[in-house]
Structures are given as C-alpha cells and as structure tokens.
C-alpha cells in the first residue's frame, strides 16, 4: 500500500505515488536550477510541465489511475536527464579547459571541492573535503577538532571555507565533488541515490559500502557528540552575541558614515555639525588625501566581509545565485590590497596619531570610536 498525492501538472490533475512525486519534483527543480541563468525560465518550465502532463495523460487513458515511479522514470528518459540536456554545452568548455591536464590512460575527471549536503555536521565542509580526497570524513573532523585547541585555528579556517566553497546542489556537482565522471549512467545513479537518501538515514548510506571497525565506530560516535555540542554552543553563542551584534552594527554604521564623509574629503565641517560633542581636531593633523585613502580602504576592509556574509546568508534563504568565481577572486584580492594599504598607513602615520589620541583621551570618548 502506498500513499498518493494529488498534483496539478500543466492544468491537469493527477494522482501520483509519493515516491514518484518526489522524483518528479527533484527532476523539475533540478531543471529549474539549470535554466535559471536563461531568460524565460518560467516559459521553458511551463513547456516541460505541459509535455510531461501530456505524456502522463496517455498513461491515464491507458487505464493507469495512479502515476507510479516507473511512469516518472520513463518520462525522465524521454525528456532527457538534466545533464543530457545541458551536457553538450558544458562538455565543450570542460574539454578545452582540461586539455593540458589530461593524463593518458586515465579517464579525465573534472574534480572540484564542494561542500557536501549529504554528509554534514555543520556546513558540510569536512564531508566535502572527504569526498574530494576520497577519505573517510571522521579523521578530518577529529583533526579539525584537535586544532581547535591550538588558538582555535579551526574556527577561521572553517568559517572561510564555509563561505567560499559552494554547496553541491545538482547531480553534476555531486559527481564532480567525488571526482566521478559526469556520464549519463552516473547521473542516473546520483539522481536516484539522492532520492533514496531523502528517506533513508544518511549515515547508513554513507557507510554502507564497507563495515566499520570498532575503533572507527567509537570515533564516529565521538565526532557525532562533538558536532551536537558545537551546534548547541553555536546557538547559545548566538543568543548571547545578538545584543552585542546590534551594538556593533550601530557602531559600524557610524564608522562607515564618518569614513564616507572622510573619503569625500573637505566634508569635515559636516562632521562637526553631526556630532558637535565629538573631538574632530585630530583630522587636521593629516592631509586630506591621506584621509581619503585611509577611509576608502577602511570601508573596503570592513564592508566587504560584512557584505559577503550578508550575501551568503541571503543566498541561502532566498536562493540567490552565488557570485561568479572571477568576481569573488577579484573582491578577495581587493580586500587584501585594502588591508595591506591600511596596515602600511597605520604603521607609517599611526604612531603620531596614537600619541595624540592618548593625549586627548580624557577629553572625550568619541575620538576613541575610531580606535
């Protein structure tokens, strides 16, 4: 006995098995992700739905009152797997970009580092790395956990990887993550795999191919406990940090405002006007162009990571497209240049400023807002 659902596909109502529905849903959403780069996504998807509805209608007329998973599989075969439809376009670019790295005797595989959505504790970074290297994820997790005791090195590394490395979403990306070649058979396997994984326990699936030794089981359990503890800690930290974040946001806005005014140059009069109680005297110790450079660099150093974090959070919630890699690289480079420039400026000119600001420490606390 199976549960069925009622769906409206291209204006026709179908009774469809739950598993068949999930497969069809996955297929359509995968298509939509791929088409999202093109204009007229909705129209193309509408065409697909109409055609699928027509094919399924034929089955209904043949006497099948319920659409089963076999019907949906037949439909996908007829319409083509997502990668069949897009394969030709991507095959060309991959072939040209990997011409030089080709090794004779080995099938060329386009391997990429993705975060693994099917094997994750927090962000799927370790799972992705394990899939990429072909290792077991547990030792990697243990290593990262141990590194936590060396000045917490793990935290920045993990956060940066979480932000920079994309999540493997489509079947192609999951195959590339594991370094398997993107062939029709593999895609088919992945699409059905992913579908099975939705209902089955992930851990069972991941470890199904070989039995785990007792030691590995202990390590797995240990990592599992640590993962849960880390999650709890992160939530608690979030609750504690939230008011502080609000204060920080306010300070951040004030600083950015002041920096923008500073970068425009000559706007110092405005600063006096905005905050008369503040001590703005120190601004005149340096030429305006220096302030302009310093301000622009500071804005970049502060704002770029903030924007990046905001964008990443938003892209998870609203399904934005991630930045193209070239743009991301350029922004990271820009950030480092700005940081370097600021460090240089501070070490070159900061000393005198420091003395001066110490001198006026008791005058007002506002001047310390810049420190």
């Amino acid at each position, binding site marked *: 006995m199976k549960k069925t659902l009622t769906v409206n596909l291209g204006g026709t109502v179908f009774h469809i098995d739950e598993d068949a529905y999930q497969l069809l849903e996955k297929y359509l959403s995968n298509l939509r992700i791929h*088409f999202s780069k093109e204009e007229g996504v909705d129209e193309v998807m509408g065409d697909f739905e109409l055609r699928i509805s*027509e094919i399924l209608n034929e089955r209904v007329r043949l006497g099948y009152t319920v659409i089963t998973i076999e019907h949906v599989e037949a439909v996908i075969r007829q*319409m083509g797997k997502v990668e069949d*439809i897009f394969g030709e376009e991507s*095959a060309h670019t991959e072939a040209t970009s990997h011409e030089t790295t080709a090794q004779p005797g080995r099938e060329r595989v386009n391997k990429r580092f993705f975060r693994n959505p099917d094997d994750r504790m927090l962000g799927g970074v370790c799972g992705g790395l394990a899939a990429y290297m072909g290792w077991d994820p547990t030792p990697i997790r243990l290593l990262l956990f141990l590194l936590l005791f060396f000045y917490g090195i793990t935290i920045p590394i993990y956060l940066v990887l979480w932000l920079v490395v994309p999540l493997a979403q489509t079947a192609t990306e999951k195959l590339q993550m594991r370094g398997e070649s993107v062939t029709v058979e593999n895609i088919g396997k992945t699409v059905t795999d992913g579908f099975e994984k939705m209902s089955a326990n992930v851990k069972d699936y991941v470890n199904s191919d070989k039995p785990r030794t007792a030691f590995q089981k202990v390590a797995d359990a240990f990592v599992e406990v640590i993962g849960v503890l880390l999650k709890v800690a992160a939530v608690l930290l979030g609750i504690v940090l939230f008011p502080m974040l609000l204060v920080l946001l306010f300070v951040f806005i004030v600083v950015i405002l002041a920096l923008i005014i500073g970068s425009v140059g000559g706007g110092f009069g405005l600063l006096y006007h905005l905050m008369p109680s503040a001590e703005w005297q120190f601004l005149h110790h340096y030429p305006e162009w220096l302030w302009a450079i310093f301000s622009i660099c500071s804005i970049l150093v502060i704002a770029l990571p903030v924007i990046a974090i905001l964008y990443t959070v938003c892209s998870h919630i609203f399904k934005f497209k991630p930045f193209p890699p070239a743009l991301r690289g350029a922004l990271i480079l820009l950030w480092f240049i700005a940081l370097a420039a600021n460090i240089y400026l501070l070490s070159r000119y900061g000393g005198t400023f420091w003395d001066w600001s110490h001198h006026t420490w008791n005058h007002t606390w506002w001047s310390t807002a810049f420190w």
Partner: protein
Amino acid sequence: MYCMVHLQYIYLGQNIINMYAAENVKSQMRKGTLEYCILLLLKKEAAYTSDIIQKLQEAKLIVVEGTLYPLLTRLKNSELLGYQWVESTQGPPRKYYKLTQKGEFFLNELEASWQDLTNTINHIRNN
C-alpha cells in the same frame, strides 16, 4: 613487460582522448546545425513540438526531448518563431510553432551561408 603494459595504457588513453575529441566535434556540429534544421522544418507549415522532436530524432540530431524546449523559447524570444495555442482532443492545448517574417529572412541568410560552407568543404575535399 612493464614497459609493454605501460605503452598499452598510453595507447588506450590516447584512444579515449581521440574518441572524446571526435564526439565533441560531432556534438558541436550537431548543435550548430540544430537551429537551422528547426527553422527549415517550420518553413513549410506550423508544427507541434512533438512533431518537430520526432523529425529531429529520426534525423538523429537530438536524442532527448528536453533539448528542444529551451531552444524553441530562445528562437521565439529572438522573434524568429511565433506560436499559437491549438486545442487538443487528447489533453491540454498545444503550442504550434511557426516561422515569422523575420525568421524567413534569417532562414534565407542561413541557406546562403550553408551553401557557402558546403561549397568550401567540397572544394577542400576535392583538392
């Protein structure tokens, strides 16, 4: 012995690469001519997507239906094709695609350049 095995692997690898390259060129050729073929098919009469697909599959130009939908929408968006909804007795209404005026001009240009291309290839092949 080791050397022989090794050589064999290199040979095998080279074969795979060659096959891959040939497949790639073939698929590029198919892709290049696909739009031209669609316009040719629609020149005589308006047709339903399934009919177009069937003809293209007979000619082994496409394998799966899905390839065609984005292509037709792209051609429609560049105003080379237009469509109208036609009622169907067997289900939802169907889109019938037809060549527009602009599409006809475009097709004539393509015909000319196709002629050029075949002439060039014949010329090179025969000399």
